């Protein structure tokens, strides 16, 4: 299985019936593909929709119905639309149960950096700062390393997205949590050893006695 599918499948297992969920662009978007059809969750798109549905068939796209990246989506029966003040009221006000975001770096304290690389790439924070600050639970979905360099670092060198720590990091190699304020290896991906995870993790990971394999 490819890295992105491993991550998206594992994150999908975190969703619970009735959750209001916001998925970021990239790997997080794929999570929706792996939610069991009998699990009723609400997906929010921060451009003003709750009840996002699958990408419409060829020729059925509506110019006024897109996701936050401007790509055509559909709306499920029971969907609702609202303006951006309402949308971010939902996000900042703690009404969103889970947000899943991509990341550039996460550090030992759970701080996320995901909106700029100074001097190189400045896309802007979009809604990420509000999502990390306001959502009840923040899950980062990203590759464990980029070009052999760990994205799980001791301290973020890149500008932070929020001073609020994230709750869970799901990579193609591991699930990492922050229980009791300690960066902890919770699961390893199928076929990946603890030693392999540690070899590409810059942060000082706490390794509990029992580290189960990721269920995906």
């Amino acid at each position, binding site marked *: 299985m490819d890295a992105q599918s491993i991550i998206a499948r594992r994150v999908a297992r975190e969703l619970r019936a009735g959750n209001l969920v916001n998925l970021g662009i990239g790997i997080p978007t794929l999570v929706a593909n792996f939610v069991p059809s009998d699990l009723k969750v609400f997906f929010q798109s921060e451009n*003003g929709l709750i009840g996002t549905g699958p990408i419409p068939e060829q020729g059925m796209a509506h*110019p*006024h119905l*897109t996701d936050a990246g401007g790509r055509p989506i559909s709306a499920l029966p029971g969907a609702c639309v609202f*303006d951006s003040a309402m949308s971010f009221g939902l996000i900042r006000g703690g009404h969103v149960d889970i947000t899943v975001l991509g990341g550039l770096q996460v550090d030992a304290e759970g701080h996320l950096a995901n909106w700029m690389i100074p001097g190189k790439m*400045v896309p802007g924070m979009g809604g990420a*700062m*509000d999502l990390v600050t306001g959502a009840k639970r923040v899950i980062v979905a990203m590759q464990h390393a980029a070009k052999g360099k760990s994205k799980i670092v001791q301290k973020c060198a890149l500008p932070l997205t929020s001073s609020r720590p994230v709750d869970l990091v799901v990579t193609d190699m591991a699930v990492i949590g922050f229980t009791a304020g300690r960066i902890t290896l919770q699961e390893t991906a199928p076929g990946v050893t603890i030693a392999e995870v540690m070899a590409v993790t810059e942060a000082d990971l706490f390794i509990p006695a029992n580290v189960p394999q990721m269920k995906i």
Partner: protein
Amino acid sequence: MKAVSVEEAVARIPNGSTVMVGGFMGVGTPERLLDELVRQRKSELSIISNDAAFPGKGVGKLFDAALVSTLTTSHIGLNPNVQKQMMANQVAVNLVPQGTFVERIRAGGCGLGGVLTPTGVGTMVEEGKRRIEVDGKSFLLETALRSDFALIHAFLADYLGNLAYALTARNFNPVMAMAADTVIVTAENIVPVGVIAPDHVVTPAPLVDYLIANG
């Protein structure tokens, strides 16, 4: 409200104006007004819009024609032209978290001096701002935003200027329609008064200054 041509509406916008533009990645953006801004070569604009859209779409067209000197926005990641113009110091870009962006505009339209938000505390966004503690929690004071003009796109307008929007094309439009001295609207459909039920009017007619039909 006055019904005008798109040429007449844009002729009222002087060079150097501060202009809010509704839309999210070009969805719900008054494209005809932007095309006309480019045609009339209105320059040195200070644009306030959620994002820079894409080259050739939405506010992206203004950057293709190099008409913008300042951009206040939350995201420019999908428009490489803006990235280039920013790096070359042709455009000053003020990046604002999206939730803060909309609340600053809401505050501007509602007569508030600003808002207190937890977003940005302890990050680069805090630089130069006042941190205020309320009941033991930290917030940033984010000041209100207003503009000379707001360019708004609606799905329906009635003859009075009441507006309703379509799906995710609503986004920043109703909030911006509150926060500018002059509000110019393109509407896809003009309908008789009463067709938009009172419960479904999102932007009340008295907010609209100029309306361009069949936008």
